[in-house]
């Protein structure tokens, strides 16, 4: 297992060291982890939470096995640049949680020019930063990701269930995340079967279901580019390696 290397064996207890960082985001993804409610307590008990501004008293970033990162990096903020360098040194594996960290999300709409820091205008998702690109292995879509999805993801990570983790790995390379991509990638290519999964997955209800023609309908103004729809769509993984049946 990736975290059971020499370093971890030297410690007395073999617990996965987990950290939670946030860049420019709303903290909702971190709260979504706590929204597993009773299960969240179990997880706090089984893994070792080594860093989180909200839940631990640490000021500096300690070495960690898995860093859950939410939010996009603001290039104009010196603290963020410092933090990403620290992250690159201290974390063995990075998981981008939520739309902002994975694909830009609602940060894609930001245009700066607001007091008192009008220069804060470029927000880059973690998956697109070359410095940490090799370490970002998984991206979890959603705004915020569903708590039960996060729970299953954590379980799969602990058990190294690669089959379950594969879609999240593929998500890190995906740039097609908005509702309009559902049309270009699925509907217009003739893959859509009208199952309605995208409309149930959409956290802003930008995608609704058109009963007249059994296809999704899309309101672009509401879309926050979180990637839920394409991650949920059973047909959107068509371009990716498909299982072969012999």
């Amino acid at each position, binding site marked *: 297992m990736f975290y059971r290397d020499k370093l971890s064996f030297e410690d007395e207890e073999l617990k996965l060291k987990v950290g939670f960082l946030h860049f420019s985001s709303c903290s*909702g993804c971190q709260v979504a982890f706590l929204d597993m*409610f009773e299960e969240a*307590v179990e997880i706090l*008990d089984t893994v070792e939470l080594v860093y989180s501004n909200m839940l631990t008293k640490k*000021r500096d970033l300690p070495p960690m096995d898995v860093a859950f990162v939410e939010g996009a990096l603001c290039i104009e903020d010196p603290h963020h640049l410092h933090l990403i360098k620290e992250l690159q040194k201290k974390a063995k594996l990075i998981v981008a949680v939520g739309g902002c960290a994975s694909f830009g999300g609602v940060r894609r*709409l930001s245009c700066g020019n607001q007091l008192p820091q009008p220069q804060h205008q470029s927000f880059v998702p973690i998956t697109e930063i070359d410095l940490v690109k090799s370490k970002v292995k998984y991206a979890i879509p959603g705004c915020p990701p569903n708590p039960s999805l996060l729970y299953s993801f954590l379980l799969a990570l602990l058990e190294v269930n690669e089959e379950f983790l594969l879609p999240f790995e593929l998500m890190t390379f995906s740039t097609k995340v908005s509702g309009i991509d559902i049309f270009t990638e699925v509907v217009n290519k003739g893959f859509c079967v009208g199952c309605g999964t995208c409309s149930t997955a959409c956290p802003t209800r930008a995608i609704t279901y058109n009963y007249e023609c059994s296809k999704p309908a899309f309101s672009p103004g509401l879309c926050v580019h979180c990637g839920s729809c394409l991650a949920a769509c059973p047909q959107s993984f068509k371009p990716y390696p498909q299982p072969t049946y012999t």
Partner: protein
Amino acid sequence: MRKVVKLEGIPLTEGHSGLYLEVEEGIVKKGFYYALVPVRGFETLLLGKDSRVAPTITTRICGLCQVTHAIASARAIEDAAGIEVPPEAEKLREVLGLAVRIYNNLLHQIVVSEDLFPERREQLAFIREVQGVRKFAGTVLETIGGEIIHSPNVKVGGVSEPLEEFVKEKLLSEIDGVLEKLKNSFSVFKEGLEDLWRREGLSEDFGSHNLGYFATDLYYGNSVPFEKFTFLLPQELLEGELRRRVTNLFPLFDGKPVETGPRARAVLFKGYTPKGGVKELHLLRGEENIEALLRIKEILESSRFEGELWNQKTPSSDGETLGVGVHEAPRGTNVHAVKVDKSGKIVYYKIVVPTELNFFAVGEALRGIPATKAEYVVRAYDPCIVCAAH
């Protein structure tokens, strides 16, 4: 001799913030509290957008008290465009606001539990108990608002989905059990708080100040004259490199710094006499949870929420009328102000969040306390830094 201490990153609070302290013989003589997270520009990104999407986008300002921004935003646009909201929809929004109050105040209790319970086992037992109540608040948010975090059902003109009678009955049947749990966890919390105060040798009036209070309602929110707000830039208030780095504005109400939040609501609407000090903030927050749950029960029992709760009139105004939307968020009064043009596009947007208002109160409360204990004052105010640098 006066020394300057700068702390960056306050653990057990939300977001990246800092403290500037002028210390003389270990006692703080002057203090400032400020945000250091980047400004995301919610006020500018909304310009030119269709006003109907504003609640969905502004709810993403904060992941802790999400729905308050959606409600304040929707109310502001309704005010600007003169849209009438079905009274039942307003009640349903009030329920959502109160549910998020419980959900968020308990989250704060979880966050500070590291301070209160030095023993890990005790802390986890407390978190488990609290999570049981948060689960109910989450269920209310999910069934009425559509999602727990970032509710999409709060729309300009009402609430997009009605609450079926049998779902309402199910929620009501759970409330009494939850109330019991809430009261139990609050008494455990109170014991932990007493322990902390004893352990750290803090006095009862630790962190007191004599600023005025600002609140608009006990539960939901009434209109405020928005022109009374003025804003100080960090450049006008701070010195040195902080002038460049601080990312929040410092709002004043009626030209004066004010405190908002649970204590302000209690003083202005319940006739509560403040004792001063930050300990009562923790206690009043806990009491608000119980009151909020009782109020949810009262609203759900007294009305039916079936049928159309959404006035789907297209918002349109002259581009000059300022619409003000107010919601009593967990941390205090949340105000959104908006101007909408003839085609329904947003031409002006301004947000004043409770944490922004409280920056001055935190600074004042720091005066006269030992510098080593400054973080306890900050935590008691439950600051939400991402909101402050929206």
